[in-house]
């Protein structure tokens, strides 16, 4: 669109006098026009500048510490646990898992040893029993 005084005034009345808020495509042409005759441009944008000033008088609401804390807490509630805490948790899980595995292995080994002792005792009893019997082949008892 051609940049002239009318267009400059329309843009100011639409977006305000601060040209950073204007459409990007028209800013350079507007800057050139304003640079050529700043006084006239300012006169054209006077109402818009007044409106901007009024809008800027509206106070920006401040974020209270309580709201900030609630929002940060809600991040945790949403499952965004900090990575550091997650690593510690993962390590704990690993350690507990390893502990359980070691305990299970120890149980298996102890069980196997105990069974071996019981079997040996049974076999010894069987040999003694067989020795006391006449006419029974050792192989029948011991296999």
């Amino acid at each position, binding site marked *: 669109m051609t940049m002239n*005084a009318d267009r400059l005034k329309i843009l100011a009345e*639409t977006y305000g006098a601060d040209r950073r808020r204007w459409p990007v495509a028209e800013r350079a042409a507007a800057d050139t*026009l304003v640079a050529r*005759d700043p006084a006239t441009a300012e006169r*054209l944008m006077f*109402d*818009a500048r007044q409106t901007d000033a009024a809008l800027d008088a509206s106070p920006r609401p401040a974020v209270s510490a309580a*709201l900030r804390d609630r929002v940060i807490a809600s991040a945790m509630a949403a*499952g965004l646990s900090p990575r550091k805490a997650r690593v510690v948790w993962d390590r704990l899980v690993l350690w507990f898992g390893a502990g359980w595995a070691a305990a299970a292995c120890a149980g298996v080994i102890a069980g196997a040893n105990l069974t071996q002792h019981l079997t040996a005792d049974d076999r010894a009893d069987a040999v003694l029993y067989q020795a006391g019997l006449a006419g029974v082949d050792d192989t029948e008892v011991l296999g």
Partner: protein
Amino acid sequence: MASIADPDEDLVRRVGQGDPAAIQTMVARKLPRMLALAQRMLGDAVEAEDVAQEAMLRAWKQAPRWRPGKAKFDTWLHRVGLNLCYDRLRRRREIPTETPPDRPDDGPAPDRGLLAAELGQRVDAALRRLPDRQREAIVLCHYQELTNIEAASLMSVSVEALESLLSRGRRALRQSLADMAPGADVDSRETGRKAEWI
């Protein structure tokens, strides 16, 4: 479609990984914007806090699955905030209240002068009296400093329609606050003159 450059991209990625510093930065960067948006759209501090908190909660849920390049995170967050505001504005219309509508502005006369706080209150009151869509256009473009394309997209209107809403809204505000600008009549006459370099 071209990928959209997003200044928040890295921050969102780190938030999605649960980085506490990134969460703090996101709160510092976005919570004031969401609170300002909701406060100016709703004109109620308590409701604005609720909306800002809910919008941030949705941001936390979205961050781990955010796919950069399709939209700016800030624009997405504004969409969430605006939807929450419009939900509440709709509910207000559905539930009749005993609160009387805004009275015509009977603020102090210009010759008495205005304290900054009073001035701010009058501007806020004038903003609240604007039609919702005009107020939304001004809030997005002036206060939230979104581009005209971003604001038009958020409002699901063309840029031309956005410009119409903006200029009508600003004109209505100027008329509503006319008594605050001593000598405005003189200035208006002056600005109405054709410029010499046309």
